[in-house]
């Protein structure tokens, strides 16, 4: 937090020099206020896009992780193949492919939002799958054996015994992925998603003050992510406290 304040004040100090034109985003002037509001209005889609995408990728990641833990070779191969292939495609490329390539190939046309969600979720799901696999594997064998000793079936063992413990352990990693997702959502601006980065791009084209506008953009992401990090840390502490 301290570092953030120092960083922010340095920027403001620098803004006093003649080369800066903070007037574009100065909230005390009507024009600056309109511009600032325009930039902040991208926050809604950045958050909605990221949260929707990560919700989907967590579910898909779990569904891909489970076969990876199977005793059957075929299932494990499916898991490996999925993770390796999806992880190998750059997110930007995936976004472009889903938006421009998928309609041409399959006839399915997605709007910008859902194309972005699909690409982000798909890309993230491979990482989620690895996180879940590691988390589930970290649970001691004795837990499975205890579940068997009270006759729980596979589904109930996972649902009531293994996953609740695994999710507690991977919570920090899931928090990381959420932060990562918020940042990666900026790439969806290339297909015209009206999120933070796109708004900044549009404004800088009309105002010719990219330096100030992109600085505000940096600060927007910084604040957003610091808030999310604090929230995730609180959640972790809460879950640990519930157990102690």
């Amino acid at each position: 937090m301290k570092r953030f304040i120092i960083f922010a004040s340095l920027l403001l100090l620098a803004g006093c020099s003649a080369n800066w034109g903070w007037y574009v985003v100065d909230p005390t002037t009507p024009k600056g206020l309109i511009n600032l509001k325009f930039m902040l209005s991208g926050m809604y889609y950045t958050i909605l896009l990221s949260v929707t995408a990560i919700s989907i990728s967590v579910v898909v990641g779990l569904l891909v992780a489970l076969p990876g833990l199977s005793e059957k070779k075929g299932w494990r191969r499916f898991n490996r193949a999925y993770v390796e292939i999806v992880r190998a495609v750059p997110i930007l490329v995936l976004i472009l492919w889903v938006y421009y390539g998928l309609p041409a190939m399959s006839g399915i046309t997605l709007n910008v939002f859902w194309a972005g969600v699909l690409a982000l979720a798909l890309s993230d799901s491979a990482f989620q799958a690895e996180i879940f696999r590691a988390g589930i594997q970290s649970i001691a064998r004795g837990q499975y054996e205890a579940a068997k000793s009270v006759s729980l079936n596979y589904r109930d063992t996972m649902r009531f015994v293994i996953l609740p413990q695994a999710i507690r352990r991977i919570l920090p990693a899931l928090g990381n992925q959420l932060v990562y997702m918020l940042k990666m959502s900026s790439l969806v601006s290339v297909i015209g998603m009206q999120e933070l980065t796109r708004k900044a791009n549009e404004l800088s084209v009309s105002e010719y003050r990219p330096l100030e506008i992109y600085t505000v953009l940096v600060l927007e992401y910084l604040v957003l992510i610091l808030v999310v990090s604090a929230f995730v840390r609180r959640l972790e502490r809460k879950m640990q406290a519930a157990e102690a």
Partner: protein
Amino acid sequence: MRDIDAPVITLRDVSKFFGDFQALKSVNLNVAQGERVVICGPSGSGKSTLIRCINRLEAHESGQITVNGMALTDDPASHEQIRGAVGMVFQQFNLFPHLTVLQNLTLGPRRVLGLTQAEADERALTYLERVRIPDQADKFPRQLSGGQQQRVAIARSLCMESKILLFDEPTSALDPEMISEVLDVMTELAASGMTMIVVTHEMGFARKVADTIVFMDQGEIIEVGTPDQVFTAPKSQRFATFLKKILQH
């Protein structure tokens, strides 16, 4: 041994391998209804493997295992059936750390036996009283001592109301001063007519409670007898040496 009763557990020529290592070599064993069997032997003798085969935590490679007349096969349905009839208490307790004591006890009854929450709670409290920790129901396992945790684990098995209980070195992970509180609970259980197979080094418990002592070494059952027989006059040299070593202190 109560030879007149039909055996509830039968092992016929059971063998088990871990890679090239043969953990069990053609083991034969009958356990009658209500019989208390103590299995002892040096570490690596296959005693844990033996009882873990009975509820299919390990798969045996050859031979037959029958529990309550049901044959243990590769069919998963038979595993579930047999696990319903056999409870198990582990060396490391293996309680569910994210659940309270009460939730640990009610999970199986609710999900497997189909009890309502209220019924399961009532049953759990009954058994918690029986293992003498009724006041710890809302605590988490890590807030309890080792002895208390193991008693919760015993109560968890009892909640499934299986007629057979397997104990895999239940006191080996406990501090010395907590061993007796667990053994006391087990002694009471034994008196209640539960069929028990106990892997343990607690020879005092074995002498007091067991109907049958089984001595294993290197994957084989070397000797079977009543406590009176085996403690006064072990037939095999290996058992005599083993007894001498663990009874010395």
